[in-house]
């Protein structure tokens, strides 16, 4: 079976490449700055957030570079939220294609996750620049590029698997139950506040704090932050939970999608 999946994947990899490059071309076609927006947009957004939180709300996180703290969380959470939101509608919006030719349907959510993923990798460029510039801003909150950076791709891959899994579930639900488009918007907002993006969980009451490790995004972000901000090896449990969440959601998503994909055509 695995051999079949690999062969199928290979067969359609050219199509997926074409679809991703189409998304890129269409996204930047009419804008003057084009792909530069991929770099500029997160930087500008981050500057707004940084201004609001560090100057207006005077938010600080003990012992770390707040700007880098904020940006790591923001960049990672934005990837998840943008990828799942675009992937959610990917099956519905390709209805004309699905009704006309046979294509494995998983390629629609998958290509969206990969397309947003490439954008995500581009946003890492300004993040690294910020780390280099503000790295030794003040004593005690130093952050610098260290050997543990080699482990960061692990967290990204886990996050990608988790996002693909969620995308498959969401795009599948969206076919049968369109209301999810609105409901998920609200869920994403709640999720934003239940992920420590601009605050640290130490400011929360003890009772609330225990539920955070259940949030997969908390695990991925913590993993990366431990490396970037504290130049330390992430804890074993953090390491394991990232893998478990990534693989688990990927498998659940794939199973649900597989079980329901033949019914899509009647509901589109």
């Amino acid at each position, binding site marked *: 079976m695995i051999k079949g999946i690999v062969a199928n994947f290979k*067969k359609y990899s*050219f*199509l997926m*490449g*074409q*679809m991703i490059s*189409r998304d890129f*071309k*269409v996204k930047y*076609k009419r804008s003057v700055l084009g792909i530069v927006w991929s770099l500029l947009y997160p930087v500008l957004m981050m500057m707004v957030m940084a201004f609001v939180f560090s100057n207006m709300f005077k938010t600080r996180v003990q012992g770390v570079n707040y700007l880098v703290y904020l940006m790591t969380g923001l960049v990672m959470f934005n990837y998840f939220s943008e990828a799942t939101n675009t992937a959610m509608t990917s099956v519905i919006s390709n209805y*004309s*294609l*699905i*009704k*006309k*030719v*046979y*294509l494995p349907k998983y390629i629609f959510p998958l290509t969206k996750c990969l397309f947003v993923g490439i954008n995500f990798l581009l946003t890492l460029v300004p993040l690294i620049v910020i780390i280099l510039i503000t790295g030794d801003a003040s004593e005690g909150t130093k952050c610098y590029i260290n050997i543990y950076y080699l482990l960061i791709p692990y967290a990204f891959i886990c996050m990608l698997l988790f996002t693909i899994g969620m995308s498959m579930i969401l795009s599948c639900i969206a076919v*049968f*139950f*369109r*209301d999810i488009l609105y409901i998920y918007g609200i869920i994403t907002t709640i999720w934003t506040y239940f992920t420590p993006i601009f605050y640290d969980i130490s400011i929360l009451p003890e009772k609330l704090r225990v539920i955070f490790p259940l949030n997969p995004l908390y695990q991925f972000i913590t993993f990366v932050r431990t490396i970037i901000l504290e130049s330390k090896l992430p804890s074993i449990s953090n390491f394991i939970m990232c893998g478990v969440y990534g693989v688990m959601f990927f498998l659940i998503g794939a199973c649900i999608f597989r079980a329901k994909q*033949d019914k899509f*055509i*009647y*509901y589109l």
Partner: protein
Amino acid sequence: MITIDNVTMKFDLGIEGTNYLKENLINLLKGKKKKAEYFYALKNVTFKVETGEVVGIIGRNGAGKSTLLKIVSGVMKPTKGKVSVDGAISPMIELGAGFDMELTARENIYLNGAVLGYSKSFIEDKFEEIVEFSELREFLDVPVKNFSSGMIAKLAFSIATIVNPEILIVDEILSVGDIKFQEKSKNKMLEMIKGGTTVLFVSHSMEQIEDLCTKVVWLEHGEIVKMGDTKKICKEFIKTMMEEN
């Protein structure tokens, strides 16, 4: 070779609209049970298309012809029964699937080619031929949204017919574009059908069916009425249709 074994396709007519919570709630309060309404587009259809055969499917509108083609090409899965296809299929059911209006003709050749299952090297090899056939060389780098519908059809046709398929599925001979291109596209399709490949062919033109097919399947309300010799069945079919008028 195509084997269609006891295929039944059942559509649930209740799907549209009952998704709504409100409607379901009202029905629940009124004590109404959701009525199951089904429509059989195909009922126990069984036949074979041998390699090299050109099989025509005839029948009036709504007889299940297009549903059958969609099942053979894999777009839909049958409710019951099995379809097995030996060889690479080229479905010529609807052209231009996956065209992106924002992209140029050049980019769409690659995208649409990929959708149709062509490999990168195949498209690169045949690129010139596609452009030549489509007569759209000057507009290669123009976004397709600025094309007329005739130009889009010409481009789509040129991409779809570039293959030498093992199995060809045709829903009506398409003739698109201006008079000159119509003639050219019709000839191209006839050439493909006559080229010795296995063909499943739906048409309302008895003339074309008689001209091209080695065997005919007559469908009525999703069931096979008759199947076999082209001339004999076409004659009977025409007679039945005329008597109704």
